[in-house]
């Protein structure tokens, strides 16, 4: 085997492509191998019904970090941001809420809640730089703290202290709280609380009453930017162009079957079909458990690391439903208007009950839905006048009692439809096609442990140590093997931060 590549990146998702692009400097030869036939991973759009495409399994592009965009130079490759759109929070028998980026632009808020919302957003704006600072830098290793970690810990402490004593105390207080308690301190409206709490519990194994969920709320609120024009596929397109411009080679439709390890060092990868590619370094953007437990030869890992990986929690709790629609549905709370985003859940208890089901290995009879209509911005996704709905469904556990049989899948679809029909009566008549992806489907199609969209739960312990103490700084105990995906700091979602931070770590370690 002759080494044709300095580094091979496994997986052409947003993080894999980001890492590859940033590593392909100064003539370094980088190969990206992707098991699926297209690039993009969870951010890739796909045709799910003849003539109808969705715009990614993960579709919240507001999380993409501006500094990563700068480092990749994505502006030069066609990435544009656009104005955020309004969110409809429908209500049975009422007008619901319309949440805009400004309190002024929002509709349906009581005077008190409007005032509180302004104060709430002001607080988030104050703490955002400090919080984002923690997430935009390499993780501070709290377990094996070296001198560098202590320095960074000190600096992070100083940055946080700049908040002032009052805000710092408040920051420390609210991070571990249940999102329900914190929102309860601010607002009176059940509808508003539920709408704000949603993103804190999607894809988690928690309800709004679970401590630590507030960290997820701050996590997304502190990093929210304008969305990317064209959504996740446009993001992927831009990174792919950037990668190719830097000479990155991308091969799709080739699955890695095994890593070649000799004397504790990566020597290459073996592809389905038997081809071997020699390389001294591998950066894996795939889910860490899949990497370590499926791709490594037996006994390559210490038992303790294997045990740690097995305890890394990846219980998938979200399903995805895509609908091909012959028209935009009428939401009775705000008839005649088109909203790109609609979020159901009328009270925190409704969200909590939806989670309760997951604990007993059932899907929610009344799931909470985060619905996007990407075809409003990108009409090409559907035939003229038609639309696409992309729905994140909570909660649907991977480990369903009785398993994800065809009738279970149908039952989940019926439950989703019942909620939709309540807010947009008659929507069923518009449905011309559908795709229901249970966590089991997501696990299979995207090679995700237990179908977890973030490669591992976002819970405080797994945000502090991600994925294991030994692998929390992108390097692994095997020389030349690195992690660069959502299973690493700072976690899942379309941030591109794990890929970028991993590239930094690899450059400073290895090359």
């Amino acid at each position, binding site marked *: 085997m002759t080494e044709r590549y300095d580094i091979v990146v496994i997986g052409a998702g947003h993080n894999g492509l980001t890492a590859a692009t940033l590593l392909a400097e100064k003539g370094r030869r980088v190969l990206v191998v992707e098991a699926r036939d297209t690039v993009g991973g969870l951010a890739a759009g796909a045709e799910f019904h003849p003539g109808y495409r969705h715009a990614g399994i993960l579709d919240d592009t507001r999380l993409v970090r501006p500094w990563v965009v700068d480092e990749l130079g994505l502006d030069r490759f066609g990435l544009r941001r656009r104005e955020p759109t309004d969110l409809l929070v429908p209500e049975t028998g009422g007008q619901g809420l319309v949440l805009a980026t400004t309190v002024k632009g929002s509709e349906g808020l009581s005077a008190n809640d409007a005032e509180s919302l302004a104060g709430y957003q002001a607080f988030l704006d104050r703490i955002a730089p400090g919080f984002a600072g923690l997430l935009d830098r390499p993780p501070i290793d709290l377990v094996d703290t070296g001198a560098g970690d202590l320095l960074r810990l000190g600096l992070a402490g100083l940055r946080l202290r700049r908040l002032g004593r009052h805000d710092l*105390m408040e920051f*420390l207080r*609210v991070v571990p*709280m249940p999102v329900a*308690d914190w929102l309860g*301190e601010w607002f009176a409206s059940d509808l508003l609380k539920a709408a704000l709490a949603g993103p804190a519990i999607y894809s988690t194994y928690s309800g709004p*009453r679970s401590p630590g969920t507030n960290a997820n709320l701050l996590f997304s609120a502190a990093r929210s930017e304008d969305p990317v024009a064209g959504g996740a596929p446009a993001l992927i397109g831009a990174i792919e162009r950037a990668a190719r411009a830097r000479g990155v080679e991308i091969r799709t439709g080739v699955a890695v079957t095994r890593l070649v390890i000799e004397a504790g060092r990566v020597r290459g990868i073996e592809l389905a079909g038997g081809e071997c590619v020699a390389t001294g370094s591998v950066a894996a953007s795939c889910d860490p458990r899949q990497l370590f437990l499926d791709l490594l030869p037996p006994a390559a890992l210490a038992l303790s690391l294997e045990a740690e990986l097995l305890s890394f929690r990846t219980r998938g709790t979200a399903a995805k439903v895509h609908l091909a629609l012959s028209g935009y549905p009428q939401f009775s709370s705000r008839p005649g208007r088109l909203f790109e985003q609609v979020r159901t859940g009328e009270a925190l208890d409704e969200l909590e009950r939806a989670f309760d089901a997951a604990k007993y290995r059932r899907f929610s009879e009344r799931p909470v839905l985060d619905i996007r209509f990407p075809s409003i911005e990108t009409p090409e996704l559907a035939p003229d006048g038609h639309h696409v709905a992309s729905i994140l469904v909570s909660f649907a556990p991977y480990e369903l009692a009785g398993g994800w049989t065809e009738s279970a899948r149908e039952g989940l679809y019926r439950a989703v439809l019942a909620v939709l029909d309540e807010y947009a009566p008659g929507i069923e008549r518009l449905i011309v096609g559908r795709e229901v992806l249970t966590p089991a489907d997501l696990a299979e199609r995207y090679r995700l442990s237990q179908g977890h969209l973030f490669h591992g739960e976002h*819970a405080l312990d797994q945000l*502090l140590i991600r994925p294991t103490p030994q692998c929390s700084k992108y390097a692994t105990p095997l020389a030349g093997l690195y992690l660069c995906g959502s299973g690493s700091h700072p976690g899942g979602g379309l941030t591109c931060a794990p890929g970028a931070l991993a590239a930094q770590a690899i450059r400073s370690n290895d090359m």
Partner: protein
Amino acid sequence: MTAIRKSGRYDAVIVGGGHNGLVCAAYLARAGRKVLVLERRHVLGGAAVTEELYPGFQFSVCSYVVSLFRPSIIRELELARHGLEIIPLETAFTPRLGDRGLCRWSDPARTRREISRFSPRDAEIHPEFSLAMTKMARYVRNLIDSPAPDPTSWNPVELWRLLRLGRELQRQGSDGVAMHLRLLTMSAVDFLDRWFESEVLKAPMSVSGIIGTFLGVRSPGTAYVLLHHYMGEIDGAFRSWGYSKGGTGGVSLACARAAESFGAEIRTESAVERIRVAAGRATGVVLANGDEIEAGTIVSSCDPRLTFLGLVGSKHLDGDFVRQIERYKLRGSSGKVNLAVDRLPRFPGREGSDFLRGDIAIAPGIDYLERAYDQAKYGEFSERPYINAVIPSIMDPSVAPPGQHVISMFVQYAPYDIKEGADNWPAKREAFGDAVVDTLAEYCPGLKESILYRQVLTPWDMEQEFGLSEGNIFHGELSLEQLLFQRPAAGWARYRTPIRNLWMCGSGTHPGGGLMGAPGQLAAQAMLNSNGKPSSG
């Protein structure tokens, strides 16, 4: 009871004669201060009290086991000389329907045999787990035995303390640090899942994380309290983890006698109606009967809400502080059911009473516990609750007539805010009692026929009878955001209050609730350290 006084004026008046108030009084009196303790009820002890509610039966009405009573207090106040005797818990029994259940014994070999019936692998790992947890507990003990560190202060002493805490943590090695981070943030179940496979073992172990909280065993943040069990071990099981002879009131009485031996004065049936504040300074207390008592320092052992919004009044406090106290969470979640029975309860599959010389947990599975929690979330008491029962009369025959027994049951969940409204608890009290007795009786046939007397305490009753706001037995939830430097409010975790000369010494301060005595002890030390006088003035 009353010591002779030269003058009517006291250095310190302590509001509330619970264990923390009495510990605080004893330390202040020991340092030569003139101290008066005022207790509203006719008996001392607050929630740590023994009462004969049925002839011949001594009930530990609320608090029923001594959890982490600080050994330094026992030593320094010579509580043994004042009658304190703690009988260690020897067993932890989890009955199961149609099976002889699981009993964990103080003898590790016996425990191992019991666990291996359900999982040989768990039996193998159990001692290793205990060892790891004991190591963790040793570190946490530092936090309990000293005032809360303040991460927002620039004071070099504080910074040094933080640094030292960090270094001591590091000394535990990377496994230890990782375990600490996880204990702080994980759910009890997720944490135990890392170690064990058998639910028969995990369910009763997980419940220590939810006692007195409004959380379920799967709620993040519940793992930390698992440590408390192991803290008892390092303090020495014979002193800090067990029953108090004669009932839990014995702890309070020993503290009271110690306080009196140092010259403190204690009055019962003396309800404090308000704390008198003039120009931002506490000057005395006004009793329900109209009497006024002046003192240089007022110390409240009541919970923060009762202290500030009740006894002081928000008009004396700034708005930001009032908001902090208003949002302080006190959602009581537990009840007590105490029984007098005419014979020893019988658990099928086990003979005798050896396996009952400790606590009995009705915790047959994780889902069972979660279902109990789910009901509480939506405003109902659990129809099939988690029960922790003890039968102290087995080891301490002095609390019941010969052959007869007392069963003391801690029950979760009984949310203060039931959906009908807390004031409707009296109408539901007996239904709640029935649910508890029915639950235990499933495991313990013949129980119902043996009952001579039953006392049911709902969170509403605890508020009414013991002055615990919302019936919270810990004077406030032990959730991460209400611990350490945030208990009970940011910037007020060192026993001082925004009112000059008013201090706190109850479970609503660091290190929190439970029969520890630490808040009372640390508060007294803080007062004595402030210019050598118990007055902050």
